[in-house]
């Protein structure tokens, strides 16, 4: 006897890289390290997705420098996702980047069956535009408020306070990468352990969910025995 109801489907989970392509990212191999880290983590993301078949992970990316634009605009199922290298030049329009995310997270474009989106911001500097209003616009959307937000700083010149505001969770701090190996560790954590948690989240009381986070696993400690470069 046929099962009642229509077609079944896993729940969509939008994963968005928000990547700094300002001129300073061309120094000391930072952009090369970022491109390599993201490319190399894709098989691990695919493994994580396979372990959580009830979440349909859809990946995109935004780049920001002078202004912001979609680097990969269409949500790509993670098992089909490939990475195109970022190039650098210009300023640090993080506010604009967050507005682009907000546009996509407005409810009419997101299924209300969806899982909380995961936003991973990677930056080496300080915003040169109105970051605060961009963040406010993001957090004013229901899905922006519910999103899991992770921030990775590349080097010591990144504005930690800005990244902390983006995260919006008192117990979760920005991760600071001082070399390519650390960046790889943090990128892998953000795109696997965090993805794992977001893929099968528990129901949360609304007063807690407004902090915008599912329970986040502990970030990796810095055990990499390599000299700091950034």
């Amino acid at each position: 006897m046929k099962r009642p109801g229509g077609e079944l489907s896993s729940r969509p989970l939008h994963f968005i890289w928000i990547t700094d392509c300002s001129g300073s990212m061309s120094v000391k191999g930072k952009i090369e390290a970022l491109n390599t880290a993201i490319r190399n983590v894709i098989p691990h993301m695919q493994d994580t997705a396979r372990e959580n078949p009830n979440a349909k992970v859809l990946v995109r990316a935004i780049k920001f420098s002078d202004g912001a634009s979609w680097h990969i605009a269409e949500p790509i199922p993670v098992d089909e996702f490939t990475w195109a290298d970022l190039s650098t030049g210009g300023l640090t329009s993080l506010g604009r980047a967050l507005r682009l995310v907000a546009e996509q997270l407005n409810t009419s474009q997101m299924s209300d069956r969806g899982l909380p989106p995961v936003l991973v911001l990677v930056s080496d500097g300080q915003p040169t535009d109105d970051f605060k209003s961009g963040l406010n616009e993001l957090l004013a959307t229901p899905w922006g408020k519910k999103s899991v937000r992770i921030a990775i700083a590349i080097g010591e010149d990144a504005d930690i306070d800005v990244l902390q505001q983006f995260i919006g969770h008192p117990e979760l701090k920005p991760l600071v990468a001082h070399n390519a190996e650390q960046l790889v560790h943090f990128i892998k954590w953000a795109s696997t352990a965090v993805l794992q948690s977001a893929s099968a989240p528990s129901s949360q009381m609304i007063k807690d969910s407004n902090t915008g986070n599912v329970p986040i696993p502990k970030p990796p400690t810095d055990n990499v025995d390599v000299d700091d470069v950034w």
Partner: protein
Amino acid sequence: MTAWRILTSSVRGATHERRDKPNQDAVDKHCSTNCVILALADGHGEAKCFRSARGAKIAVEKTVELLRQKFEKSDGSPSVNIIKEYLPREIVRTWRHAIKMHHDEAPFAEDHKCLLLDSEWRIAYGTTLLAAAAIPSGILFLQLGDGDILIVDSDNNVHSFPHDPRLIGNATLSLCDDKADTEFRVDWKDIPTIKLVLLATDGYRNSFRDDQGFQQAALDYALLIEQRGVDAVEQHIEEWLKETSRDGSGDDITVGILWCEDSLLTLENKDKFSDFEQEVAAIQPLSDSH
């Protein structure tokens, strides 16, 4: 009295099976000549809601008991005050009392105590609640938190109670909320033109590609019961729900179905069918004695 019948089924979700976690949903029911009652609850899965399965069980048992006491001997429509103020307040009060009793008898272990402040202990039992009670004069619906209520009318149209727009991304309201009694959504249908009512925890709807597919489930159950009888549905419902969780949301799924055995449904009162209105009753706050 219209001959209402009840069918329920609850399955552990595919994700919980993979992670060896229990089903945190609960369901309870009551059938008598004058009164048919169904209650579902979905215990929260957050780490600090470590007794939510117990909280859900207590919620459905106490709700069914309360509604039975209120409606079993009733022969008229309940007053608006009863529906919108008294019942939510009493459900929360009796639930709080019951979990306090449980907590007093079984204090939290040390590794759980650290997850909550002393003042937050109720969160450990946090759960949603969905209920329907059919009596001769109509049907009462109550909802706190996520989950769904679908109604199939005598024309085989499916009506869905509107969703709370705040409840996305697994966010929900809870019986453990301080103001839970003011957050209930309640509705009463005086003259039902209802063939079937389906209550479900959110794992069910979240498993379908779209709302149309979910609503189709309610219609399919109505037609199956009409054409093949309830035994055929009872025989298969558990396997259907397991399949739904496996290929859909992965969540626990609990479904309760009320259906009308009589064919006395009329069309003349269709216009009285109204959607839920989210009401915030101005009621006396509950004391914090529990």
